[in-house]
């Protein structure tokens, strides 16, 4: 793992240790690649947000950079018409299941979705798809934060943190397809679950699905 290699990202020569995932190499060298579901310490990546696509010379189709180990002489382009198109569609699909109310949102300005839109020149609007219903109840049972499913993009960061860092395991994915949600065991409110309200999930949330209660 410690063997150093050289690769090219967007024309820049970069040295990195072999086997590290391309996404982190790029981010650490100041080259932004959109991402939501990736967690550096997680070895079993879901690669489910479909936002971190890049073009690699010699590969037929764009690949997700979070799952791609870097190797000697790799030539990477973070933008191409194909990449942009994939990212645009994936982003719009995410937004179709996300309540857009940026101006009144607590995360306005520090939101990961806004950052991606800004970096890639994407619109925070759903044009091509029919937005899904988000008639979900807000779980305000914890004292320090609230959980608003209508803003959840199912990246799974909170679940990973809850399990691997907080070592609690109060939340997880349940159901499937359009009904997939982050929930507790038996869909009980968080206050009735094993949740310790450590707040790590709130830090991990890229949007405002999990947000601190404003004092």
């Amino acid at each position, binding site marked *: 793992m410690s063997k150093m290699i050289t690769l090219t990202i967007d024309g820049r020569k970069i040295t990195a240790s072999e086997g590290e995932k391309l996404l982190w190499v790029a981010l650490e060298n100041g080259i932004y690649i959109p991402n939501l579901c990736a967690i550096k310490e997680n070895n079993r990546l879901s690669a489910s947000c479909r936002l971190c696509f890049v073009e690699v010379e010699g590969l037929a189709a764009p690949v997700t950079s979070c799952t791609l180990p870097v190797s000697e002489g790799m030539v990477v382009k973070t933008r191409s018409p194909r990449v942009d198109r994939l990212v645009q569609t994936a982003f719009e699909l995410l937004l179709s299941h996300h309540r857009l109310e940026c101006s009144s949102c607590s995360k306005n300005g520090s939101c990961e979705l806004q950052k991606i839109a800004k970096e890639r020149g994407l619109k925070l609007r759903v044009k091509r798809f029919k937005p899904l219903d988000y008639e979900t109840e807000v779980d305000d049972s914890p004292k320090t934060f609230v959980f608003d499913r209508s803003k959840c993009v199912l990246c799974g960061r909170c679940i990973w943190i809850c399990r691997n860092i907080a070592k609690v395991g109060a*939340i997880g*994915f*349940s159901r499937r397809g359009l009904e997939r949600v982050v*929930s507790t*065991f038996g869909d009980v409110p968080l206050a009735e679950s094993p949740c310790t309200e450590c707040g790590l999930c709130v830090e991990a949330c890229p949007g405002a699905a999990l947000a601190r209660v404003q004092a």
Partner: protein
Amino acid sequence: MKLLEREKEIISNELQDIVDEYQSKPENLIPILQKVQDKLGYLPLPAMEKIAQALHIPAVDVFGPATFYNQFRLNPPGEHQVKVCMGTACYMAGGSIAMESFERRLNIKEGETSPDRKYSLERVACVGCCTMAPVVVVDDEVEGSVTPTRVDGIMLSFEASDGEKKQEQVEGPEKEQREELEKEEKSEPEKKEGE
């Protein structure tokens, strides 16, 4: 949905044996869930909690797969099982209208069982007779072209057949309970007319 005392008893009696058959490894989760459903007919929450304890995983990790796969059901099967087809043809022909009619008539949601365990309502994907869409399978009998009126008819036939049974075996408290239920059901069509 609340579990009845006798159901809780069955769960605590049956479960330990099943869990003991398997090694305490997370990869045994699905086989255990299948076996439990085989024995009990459904996966109650207390059973899932016990399985989680045995496998040393968070309970929500059992809940996830149990709600993900269609083969698992979370509520006990009712005496009468209603399965509404939501395959493409039935969906287009108004399967959701049939589903909603049943939900209203039975006062339960899709996937649930009535508190007296008489009816359970399920959604299935294609039963193989799309020309009869929308199709509902009622206790293994296939009903085609199910309109809300037909739903009322199906419910009436249930009530009639149960009425016969009731006359055969006159039971005190249970009879009262059923009569009460029938009263409720009778009052519902009136509500529907107003909608």
